[in-house]
């Protein structure tokens, strides 16, 4: 499986050198798979129709849905174009997890090629539908908001909250320490985007995240 990478500005998934870059081919025309990384993948949206014969075209996503670039129609959309993002909390390092975003009728060959490419670069792949927050943000943002709210309500001290979740569930880090390390203001941005998408109160940024965001602007 040969692939070619197009860079479009800063990539949250691949901010530095990575095995994925090392194994990439130089020739776009000869590649089976095209990977578009960076914050401005939209600038290649017009080219997607020219790449229909590629096994897969993989677009790096932020908080937006793949449908923005690949189009949607009557719930039966899907092609060789997939989305992806390497899960990363705020300013922390990117994890080894790639969330691979599909549409209802995405090509199975594209999914399998994408999985092969990412796994070949030492990453793990979880396939998910094209919904805001994908898998991990859908699960952790409500949990982080709840932890921040309960801290305000003095359910327990920050240390006791963290200790409980580490010792009780084997989490590597408690939620409060983790948000401090990776940036509360960043948590605000992600959970606000999800609140905009779903309108569910669980995603409403917790007070502490809002304060961090406001003070980061000063």
């Amino acid at each position: 499986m040969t692939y070619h990478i197009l860079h479009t500005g800063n990539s949250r998934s691949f901010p530095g050198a990575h095995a994925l870059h090392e194994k990439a081919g130089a020739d776009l025309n000869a590649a089976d798979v095209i990977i578009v990384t960076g914050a401005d993948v939209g600038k290649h949206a017009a080219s997607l129709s020219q790449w229909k014969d590629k096994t897969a075209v993989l677009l790096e996503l932020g908080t937006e849905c793949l449908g923005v670039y690949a189009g949607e129609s009557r719930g039966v959309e899907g092609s060789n174009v997939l989305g992806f993002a390497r899960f990363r909390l705020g300013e922390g390092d990117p994890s080894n997890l790639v969330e691979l975003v599909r549409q209802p009728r995405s090509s199975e060959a594209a999914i399998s090629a994408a999985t092969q490419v990412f796994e070949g670069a030492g990453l793990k792949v979880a396939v998910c539908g094209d919904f805001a927050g994908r898998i991990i943000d859908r699960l952790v943002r409500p949990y982080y908001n709840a932890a921040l709210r309960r801290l305000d309500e003095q359910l327990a001290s920050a240390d006791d909250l963290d200790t409980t979740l580490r010792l009780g569930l084997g989490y590597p880090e408690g939620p409060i320490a983790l948000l401090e390390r990776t940036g509360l203001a960043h948590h605000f941005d992600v959970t606000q985007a999800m609140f905009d998408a779903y309108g569910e109160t669980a995603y409403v940024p917790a007070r502490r995240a809002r304060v961090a965001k406001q003070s980061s602007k000063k």
Partner: protein
Amino acid sequence: MSEIKTVGVAGSGTMGAGIAIVAARAGYKTIVFDTRQAALDSARKQTAGFFAKSVERKKLTQDQVDKIMGDLSGTTSLADMAACDIVIEAVFESLKVKHELFSELNKVCPQTTLFASNTSTLSITEIAGGSGRDDRFVGMHFCLPAQLMKLVEMSPGIRTTDATFQRAWAFSKAMGQTPVKTKDNPGFILNYFLVPFNNDAIRLVESGVAAPADVDRAIKTGLGYPLGPLELLDMVGLDTQLLLCEALYGITHDPRAACPPLVKRMIAAGHLGRKSGQGFFNYSGNAMFGG
């Protein structure tokens, strides 16, 4: 403040048996009370097996185990709890059952005996209210499996005195546990966060966002959690998750704590998790499907 020497455990089920191991292993004379002799017999057998493994793994010597097993006794007579300086209750999760038990214990135990409850979802203040000694009452929530997990969530009820809380806290530490202090709040810390988190994971599967194996792989790889939420739910049991949701949602009315309809459908289909061989994953032939 009298020293705790003898520990009572009420209820010899999954949790009671584990808590009794923790107390006896720490050198306390430990008396386990259950209304069913069969529960005491089965726990004693399991406890002997557990300590045999501790000897095999060289964590304890046979002499130490003999002493521990000598200090650990079972009884179906409530009157035997009169010898205890603290009684940790781990009977069925029912306010009525717990009230009845504590009001009987209150008649039998000396005034200085502390009462503690291992409840997961009930209010410590409410249980204490039926005990006749709500000032000497504390929440001590151990984690499953209690004999291995160090964490104890400790909560004072509204009328718990500082002296009571400190005495129970010191006792928890003396048993080698790691206590954390939490308010008397539905689900304390652990279940308060875990039950809705697991429900959210179920809803991702239910609404077709991702398959169980993908959800678990994402959480384990992306966050470094030792278990994915869906394999954890298969271990806990979908029937237990339903009970936890009903208890938490009943008090908090938090939409995330409401039981997702898929859980009820899975229970109806007999997909309870590991114990029935099928949950979110298939366990026939002991091999884990998906992953």
